[in-house]
């Protein structure tokens, strides 16, 4: 059972510090962070802008745009639209940019671990 961290600490086949410092991994890390951090900040700012308007700018939010539909409802529904939009955007980005890079490193490390295990068994 134990915990996964301790288990692999005893298994020195992969030097994770070296992997972490490799250009390949740093590139993956950058690709990941360059997307998730700005987008997270963006949607949180947009959400709180909406929350603040709903809390303090009642008159503005009550302006009717189309029939009885007011700015408040439009902005609320836009929160739904942006949430769906960001979801789709991230999935496309992850499938095209993140997954291939991650898979390359994973395949390399896993074959390294497998090779080490086979040698151990042979000895």
């Amino acid at each position, binding site marked *: 059972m134990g915990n996964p961290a301790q288990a692999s600490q005893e298994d020195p086949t992969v030097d994770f510090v070296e992997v972490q410092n490799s250009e390949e991994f740093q590139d993956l*890390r950058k690709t990941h962070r360059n997307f998730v951090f700005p987008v997270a900040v963006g949607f949180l700012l947009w959400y709180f802008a909406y929350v603040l308007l709903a809390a303090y700018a009642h008159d503005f939010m009550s302006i009717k745009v189309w029939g009885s539909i*007011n700015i408040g409802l439009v902005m609320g529904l836009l929160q739904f639209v942006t949430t769906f939009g960001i979801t789709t955007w991230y999935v496309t980005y992850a499938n095209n940019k993140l997954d291939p890079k991650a898979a390359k490193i994973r395949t390399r490390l896993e074959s390294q671990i497998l090779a080490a295990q086979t040698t151990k068994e042979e000895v």
Partner: protein
Amino acid sequence: MNLSSALTALAPMKSLGEQTKDTSWVNILIFILFVGVTMVVVFRASRNNKTAADYYAAGRSFSGGQNGTAIAGDYLSAASFLGITGAIAINGYDGFLYSIGFLVAWLVALLLVAELLRNTGKFTMADVLSFRLKQRPVRIAAATTTLVVCFFYLLAQMAGAGGLVSLLLGLDNNNKTGQGIVIAVVGVLMIVYVLIGGMKGTTWVQIIKACLLVIGAAIMTIIVLAMNGFNLTTLMDAAVQTSINEGGAGAALLNPGAAYGKAPLDFISLALALVLGTAALPHVLMRFYTVPTAKEARKSVVWAIWLIGIFYIFTLVLGYGAGALIGKKEILAAPGGVNAAAPLLAFVIGGPILLGFISAVAFATILAVVAGLTITAAASFAHDIYSNVIVKGEPKPEMEVKVARRTVVVIGLVAIAGGILANGQNIAFLVALAFAIAASANLPTIVYSLFWKKFTTQGALWSMYGGLAAAIILITFSPVVSGSPKAMIPGASFDWFPLANPGIISIPLAFFLGWLGTVLDKGTEDPRIQAEMEVRSLTGVGAEKAVEH
């Protein structure tokens, strides 16, 4: 509206709440059918429930679509279905604000948490938090916050069951014994599901329930829209007209301010807790371990976001529909109060059969959510406290699952007792409290340990215990607990904290404490484990694989 006046003409002596009682046997019948079907599924699913990975994580064998549906089933609790529909029917626009926070929150889970957690953890939230820090203290802290959050969430669901039952089974609002018996029945059913079915059974119950809930809400939405010529303006104007007829808020229903007009800070605090709480709810996080890969975890969130988002758009229509066809006065007068809006609407537009269907779904909702919470709490106790702290990582393989199963029974009994005691408490408040505690006690440590290299054990402990304590202390001294006739302890007044939700103070404080604890920590953590965690989290090397049967 013509229809509601026609209905009133048909039964001039009886209120809607009274009328629904006459057909409560339909509700019971449909609910028994649901229990029967899910029991069969749970028994079939329980065949391979031997190892811990089977029991806690369903062998990691669910697809992203299945897990996403289960997440939606887990997340769309009675509080969000009945609560939000009722809130929109009564407070109009301000009810809608809840659903936006609940939905946007999923982006935090999608972008920052889900995949990284799936890649690094095994069964529980504590697996991730303690990965590169000192095992014992961090695990104990994470298990503590997990148990506290689950407890409040569980209490909310069980307390809600009592009120719901009055409406659905035609019991009197004052019939506390009858409600207590039903709470006990819900608790026992849940224990059976979780004990036998484990995570696999629980997941199937949630999937079935999510499908029924979304289909039921879709049917109601289409009927309501059809009655209003598929025009949102016509529907909202009808709600305004009903409100004017009974001397209510009228046109103000469509504008913000009906519920939070006088307490904007309260609303901001709630909004913060909602958006940051979801990605830190232990029972939501645990669901990500039931899929084979991080990519499937991503797919799960995508499915969940679409289902939950579409469902909340339905509740907007249903809320205004209930406002238009039934009206605030009649809703509040019915047994169950605010929570009665959705079932009453079902009765008005679809008669006893639709009411029975929606009521059974609402029941099933409580059952499914409670089951998910219970297995999370049991896993956390058995895996984090028993295996890793009490016997220090050397339990016999079968023992951990055995301990988890015993914990399920204990938690079930505690939930029944707590539910009976908390019967009648405000559900939305208890749920918001669980979100605030999760966002304060868990989220800072999750984010720091995934993204901040220098983060240390001391930072984690300060943040988790500090956030937990701040949230609970502020709640204790808030107007919800004392100081007004509506408070939990109406007679007392020690309400020096003015807000109903502690999030705006406790969440930033927990982030600050995590930073402070880290910079003041003289020790550092092993950079090799940090490297391993980061590499694993992004690439999936060494991630737990699906169990093959």
